[in-house]
């Protein structure tokens, strides 16, 4: 799983039926110093509770496709949690 900051949203009226009711977010992956690395990507926000500017963690690959029972979706990146706080030995509590 990676840390990322939510930098935008994406709407799609026509989409695979398994995505119904879900929002897509544009994520910028972050490293341990909360500095951006790599290119932004699109991830599914399955509970619709993530907003711009929030720090989240997301899962990639096969594990992103099935997060609820009997609900498979063609997703390769899914947000699985919102970060309240992050403490590292370098920067302390933030």
């Amino acid at each position, binding site marked *: 799983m990676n*840390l990322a900051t939510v930098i935008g949203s994406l709407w799609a009226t026509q989409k695979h039926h398994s995505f119904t009711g879900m929002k897509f977010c544009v994520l910028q992956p972050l490293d341990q110093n909360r500095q951006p690395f790599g290119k932004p990507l699109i991830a599914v926000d399955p509970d619709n509770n993530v907003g711009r500017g929030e720090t989240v963690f997301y*899962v990639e690959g096969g*594990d992103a496709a*099935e997060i609820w029972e009997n609900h498979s979706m063609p997703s390769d990146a899914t947000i*699985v*949690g*919102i970060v*309240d706080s992050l403490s590292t030995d370098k920067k302390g509590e933030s």
Partner: protein
Amino acid sequence: MKLARVVGNIVSTLKHPAYEGRKLMLVEPIAPDGKSAGPATVAVDYVGAGEGELVLLGGAPGAARVVFGIKLAPIKDMVMGIIDEVELNGEIVLRATDSP
């Protein structure tokens, strides 16, 4: 699996049910010489590792279901062990005591 060092702890209230009650950590992959080998990732702790420790980071897709015994687990990275030492070509290149 990868070598990694625990660099931080994460607190999260809103998260997928599979993560409830589990410790979330920030781990930085390292090379056998102890230097950083890429940006840190979020991992679920399985062995009780602490900040600064050298750990074994791994998890194939679906592995978390077996490890935690739950039906659905969107968890990719797990801390599966705490490293005591690493030997390369007959030489100990990394020891638990090397970690800061």
